């Protein structure tokens, strides 16, 4: 759930902001998209690990097996399989499609014959012709249009895994929007964690500008406020709903057995992001990076708080119990971060982390005759060069 959530910001930035024509996405979306694909790959391991009989995971996929057994399509677990597999496939396709022209650019500049051959195969013989660009633009738009409802539906479907169960703290109609907002919020946190070091180490300050980070920080602040609203609504309904079981559960979650986890979550996800109301902090990369670590921590604890307090404080007192992670649990958690980091580092080593073709699209093209209106090219598109911006705190 943590890793699926991480992936959502990538699709939001690459697809939804593409449809909204938000210019700040251009320089950060490639990293965010790659993060999405690797996060879903990581997330996909966990259901298999938790099945108990992991070698039978394919029983969830509908196919005419020899016993003629089919999955139960009314089960949220089956919806989850369809949602996650679709999300992985579409995200990977979307990422690869955007990479095609960039692979072609690398292929044409590469001098090593083997690498040139590899990038030639990866680019599928892309040639930047008007025919290819015309169909590419349309296909990219349609994939963005498909990805937009998909990103909203996937975490809604994940939330149904909980909301369909009659368990205190889970059985709520709020869960779908609450999960989607939380997923996007956690993903933006991870985008900052990834993009800020890359921007510094690869010296990409003139591509990933402070204005871009500022805009992304505003998005982060907005989703933090949505998440905070969801938390407050949950608490309010727990108190106002008149259900003694829910009331007891919520008290236990916030002030009882799990108070420490709940308050880590609340501090990291609702209080610290409020600092983004200040422009100086939105443009301070050190603070953005630090805050992103807190957001990652807070969103991990959000999932911990969703799982453990509910399962350890169900309807009957004999069901009330404790939970402490074993060293295997910690190893699986650390291993998932290692798996994710391995794929991401391989990606940034071999593939362009900034969308080359899209950057070329927004910079003014070379012209023989300067346009009459200063600062605007014949295409009517001009991205002003951003000089050293005051407030840089690297």
């Amino acid at each position, binding site marked *: 759930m943590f890793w699926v959530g991480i992936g959502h910001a990538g699709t939001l930035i690459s697809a939804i902001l593409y449809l909204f024509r938000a210019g700040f996405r251009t320089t950060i979306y490639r990293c965010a998209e790659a993060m999405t694909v690797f996060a879903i790959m990581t997330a996909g391991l966990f259901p298999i690990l938790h099945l108990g009989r992991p070698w039978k995971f394919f029983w969830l996929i509908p196919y005419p097996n020899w016993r003629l057994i089919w999955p139960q399509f009314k089960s949220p677990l089956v919806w989850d399989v369809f949602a996650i597999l679709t999300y992985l496939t579409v995200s990977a396709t979307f990422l690869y499609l955007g990479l095609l*022209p960039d692979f072609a650019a690398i292929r044409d500049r590469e001098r090593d014959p083997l690498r040139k051959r590899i990038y030639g195969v990866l680019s599928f013989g892309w040639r930047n012709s008007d025919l290819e660009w015309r169909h590419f633009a349309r296909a990219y738009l349609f994939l963005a249009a498909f990805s937009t409802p998909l990103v909203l539906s996937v975490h809604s479907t994940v939330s149904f895994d909980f909301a369909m169960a009659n368990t205190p703290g889970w059985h709520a109609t709020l869960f779908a929007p609450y999960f989607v907002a939380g997923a996007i919020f956690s993903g933006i946190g991870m985008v900052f964690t990834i993009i800020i070091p890359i921007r510094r180490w690869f010296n990409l300050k003139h591509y990933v500008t402070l204005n871009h980070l500022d805009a992304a920080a505003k998005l982060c602040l907005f989703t933090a406020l949505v998440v905070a609203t969801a938390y407050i609504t949950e608490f309010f309904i727990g108190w106002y709903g008149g259900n003694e079981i829910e009331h007891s559960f919520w008290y236990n979650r916030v002030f009882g057995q799990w108070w420490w986890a709940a308050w880590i979550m609340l501090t990291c996800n609702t209080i610290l992001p409020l600092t983004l109301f200040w422009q100086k902090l939105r443009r301070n990369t050190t603070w953005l990076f630090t805050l992103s670590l807190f957001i990652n921590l807070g969103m991990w604890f959000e999932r911990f708080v969703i799982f453990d307090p509910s399962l350890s404080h169900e309807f009957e007192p004999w069901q009330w119990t404790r939970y402490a992670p074993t060293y295997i649990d910690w190893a699986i958690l650390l291993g998932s971060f290692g798996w994710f980091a391995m794929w991401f580092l391989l990606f940034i080593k071999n593939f362009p982390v900034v969308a080359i073709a899209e950057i070329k699209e927004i910079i003014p093209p070379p012209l023989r005759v300067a346009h009459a209106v200063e600062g605007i090219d014949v295409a009517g598109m001009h991205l002003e060069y951003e000089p050293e911006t005051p407030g840089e705190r690297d």
Partner: protein
Amino acid sequence: MEGIVGVFRELDATVDAVAAVKKLKAGDIRVYSPAPRHELEHLLNTGPSVVRRYTLIGGLLGATFGYWIPIWISDYWPLVVGGKVVPSWVPYTIISFELMVLIGSLATVLGLFVVSRIPRITMTVGYDERFSNANFGVWVECPPDRQTDVSDTLKKHGAVEVRGER
């Protein structure tokens, strides 16, 4: 397949050259640019992309299949609960939606590949590696007797290099 390829450094020079070559009616024109440019698209006036048809058909097929398979399985192995109708369309809408997105997206990419004629095994004639970097290119597929006219027109409008290829 033979013709003339011209390499340009500036966008406005490319636009002027394409307009002039179109007037010559010497043959099919293919324009290369490092990034999509609306000026070139408008000039070539090629109409809307047919990729949308693949998307529509793929999406409809996916949505239909997404309803059909759970309904068929429900009837094949009925689990009767409280006399309710066995196929339950509300949860099946989730399957239908996911398959609509999945098959629609894959059909879109298939459509892009088919209509753009990729994957391409060889780079074929009329392409230069500079076209993916910062330069623009114009390829005019024309018979030998028109090649001089085309070549002169491209040079006149600012081509930094013009060569015949076959």
